Structures are given as C-alpha cells and as structure tokens.
C-alpha cells in the first residue's frame, strides 16, 4: 500500500487548530498549576498543622486518582456548582489545574527540602520574615534543583491534554482521530501526530535545558 501524505496538507488548518487547543490547555495549566503547587508545597512543609494536614490530604487524594476521573468530576460537577454549563475547555482546564497542582506541589516540596536548612536560618537571622526568606533565598535555589523535574512534568501535562477528548474537547489527538474517520488514512495521520508530539516535547526539553544552563552559571 502507498502513503498519501496529501491528507495531512489538506486537513492542516483543522489539525493545527486542534494542536493550538492542546498547546493552550497545556500552557495555561502549567501557568496556573505551578504557582498553585508552590502554595500547596508551602502548606505541606508548614510547621502549622492546620495548613500542613489539608495540603497533605489534598496532594494524596489527587495523586491517587487517575486524571480521567478528575476530568469527569469537573465536567459534571462544575456546572452544578456554577448553575450553568461552562464549556468543555473551562471544565477540563479546571480539572487539569487542580490535578497537576498536586504533582507540581511535590516537585516544589522536594526542591525546597533540597536547600540546606542553614540557608533559611541565615536569612531569618538577618531579619528577613519567613515569606521574604522563602521568596528571596530558598525558592530561587529550590527552583534550580527542580528544573529537570519541572521540565518532565510539563511534557506530561502536554501529553495529558489527550485525555480531554473524553469530554469532547477538540484537542490535537481528538482532531486527528476525527480526520481519520473521514479520510480513512489512520497510518499517515497517526504518524504525523507522533511526529508533532515528539517535536513539541523535544522543543520543551531543549528550552528547559537552556534555562538550567542559565541557572547553573549563576553559581
């Protein structure tokens, strides 16, 4: 059998719209769940039990559930809470942000704990508040040590966007699937999809490595 690569060119605008949805979902998820993860991580290491326990329970609850379940949850739960349909993108985004914030929280926590305790002591001893010491001294160093795990997690988020198809969102893989239904050219299209995922993730890791190099030089 021969390949018919024209099918990709013919459907390129549609496929790219799907890819754009995936990229958007991944980017906004990372942009929101990373800061949220930082907050949860600070709760996880807080000496105050009323902060530590809820944060710990939240992280464990989210990490012991599959993403697809959380997506379902939000898809059916958010409209009940808000009283009106919110659209598939918004509900998937909410699910992703909550789900991945738990994973980012664990990365941030281990990053913070990799910074020597003496650094916090030194910062506190000069009269910085706990928040200032975290922001100026501990987090910048933690960020450097967690860069590789963060990059990996971003790739996982991007690959995770494929889950959004379960509630009908037109992300990249779903779009590709719809095109194969119509054109009966699954081999070409799925090869193309694999190539696209590879390129996007490679670009992501290269970018992360550059950031790492930059942070490393500041030593």
């Amino acid at each position, binding site marked *: 059998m021969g390949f018919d690569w024209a099918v990709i060119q013919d459907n390129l605008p549609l496929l790219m719209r799907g890819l754009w949805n995936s990229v958007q979902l991944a980017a906004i998820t990372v942009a929101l769940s990373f800061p949220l993860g930082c907050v949860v991580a600070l709760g996880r290491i807080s000496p105050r039990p009323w902060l530590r326990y809820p944060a710990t329970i939240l992280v464990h609850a989210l990490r012991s559930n599959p993403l697809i379940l959380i997506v379902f949850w939000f898809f059916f739960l958010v409209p009940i809470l808000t009283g009106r349909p919110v659209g598939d993108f918004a509900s998937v985004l909410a699910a992703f942000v909550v789900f991945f914030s738990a994973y980012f929280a664990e990365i941030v926590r281990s990053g913070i704990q990799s910074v*020597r305790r*003496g650094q916090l*002591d030194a910062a506190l*001893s*000069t009269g910085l508040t706990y928040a*200032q010491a975290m922001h100026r001294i501990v987090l910048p*160093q933690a960020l450097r040590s967690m860069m590789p795990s963060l990059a990996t997690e971003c790739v996982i988020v991007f690959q995770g966007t494929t889950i959004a198809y379960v509630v009908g969102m037109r992300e990249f893989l779903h779009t590709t699937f719809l095109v194969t239904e119509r054109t009966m050219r699954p081999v070409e299209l799925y090869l193309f999809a694999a190539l696209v995922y590879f390129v996007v993730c490679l670009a992501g890791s290269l970018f992360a490595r550059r950031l790492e190099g930059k942070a490393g030089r500041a030593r």
Partner: protein
Amino acid sequence: MNEPLVSIQNLGLRYGSFRALEDVSADFRRGTCVVICGPSGSGKSSLLRCINRLEEFQDGDVVFDGASLRACQDLPRLRSEIGMVFQHFELYPHLSILDNVTLAPRIAKGRSRRAAEETARRLLDRVGIGDQAGKFPGELSGGQQQRAAIARALALEPKLMLFDEPTSALDPEMIAEVLRVMRDLARNGMTMLVVTHEMAFAREVADEIVFMDKGRIVERAETARFFSAPAAPRAREFLDRILHRL
C-alpha cells in the same frame, strides 16, 4: 548602660525528649567578648540559636536589650539587631557577594540600594575582600566566604554578634584570617558570643569563658583564671584534652 545586653533566664530547650538546654542562666555585658566552649553536644550552638530565637525554647526566657524574646511580637526586627555567623557560612549561592551583604539591609531595613552598597563595600574592605564584591560565593575560598558572611552580619549594624563555630569548617591556613577579623571586631568594642574550639583565640581575645556540658553551664570565669585554674573537674578535663592535643 549597666544592664546586661543579653540576659538568659532559666532557659530550657528540648528536642522531643532530649534536653538540649536545662535551666541555663547567664548575663552578658555590652562590649565584652565571651567564648563558649565545651564538648560537642553540650548545647553551645543551641544556646546561641535561642538568643535570636532560631530555636523555640520551652522554658525560661532571654532578654535582649531590655526586651523579652518570649513576648517578642516582631522577631525580624529583633533578629536584625543580632548578627549571626554560621559554621558553614551559609552565604546565598545564587547572589553575588555584594548582594549577599546588601539583601537584608534593603529588604528588612528598607535602605536604598545605593546606601546599602556603600556600607557593604566599606565592610567588605574592612574584612579584606573588597575586590571580591562582584563574585559569587562559590568562587571564593572558605576563609573569604566566612569573612563575607561576617560582613553580611555587620551590615545590619548589630548590637550583638553570635559566632557559631566560625572556623570549624575551614582549612587550617584560612582559620587565621577569619580569627583576625574577629579579633579586630572585639577590639573595637563589639559585643560577641563565640562558640569555638580555638583556645588560642579564646585566651587572647575573650574577656570571659563559659564552659558547658550536657546542656548546662558548668563553669564561667575570666579568661586568665579559666586557663590557669578551672574550678570544675569537667572543665579541667576538657582543657587538658583540647590543649594537649596541640
């Protein structure tokens, strides 16, 4: 000025069931340099760390410059009046030496960058590393790092300096340069509490020696008397061991 700068009153500190400090009381006058010595695990560092409440003690109190630490509502302000130097320097590796020194004055005390940098450069000159201001901590030798850490503590114009084994992590040839800076500070009237095993430094610079063992102060004496005739048998034993090693 007769009231002590630091007054430690029946201080008790526990880690779980381990008693790190038990019923420790001591006053430290302004302008004096006191060396705290004793075997490891005797509570020397814990005592220092209680004085700026890096350790939360359970019993007793510390009164610093007339203010109770137990009742203190503004710990950052209180801590900014007490400089601390650590065994492992604890310079911030992601900041230049200059930024290490200017950070707290700018953030905690609201100084302008210019004023803070002026002070920092003067202090770095004073500790003999004025030419290293633009470098990162990792590019300096241990001795230079510790001197930078002393400059960082001095930048807050503290009333008291705490030294927690400042030379224990240094190669022998770098110890002298750090001790020289400390001696210079003491001669200029800084109130200093120094935990150290450097008995030569203690003998030369300290006004008084405090000897601790098992979380208590066992002996406190003027330097000359401590070295000639320590009263407590445990202090004598300790001195014998540490002096004859040399």
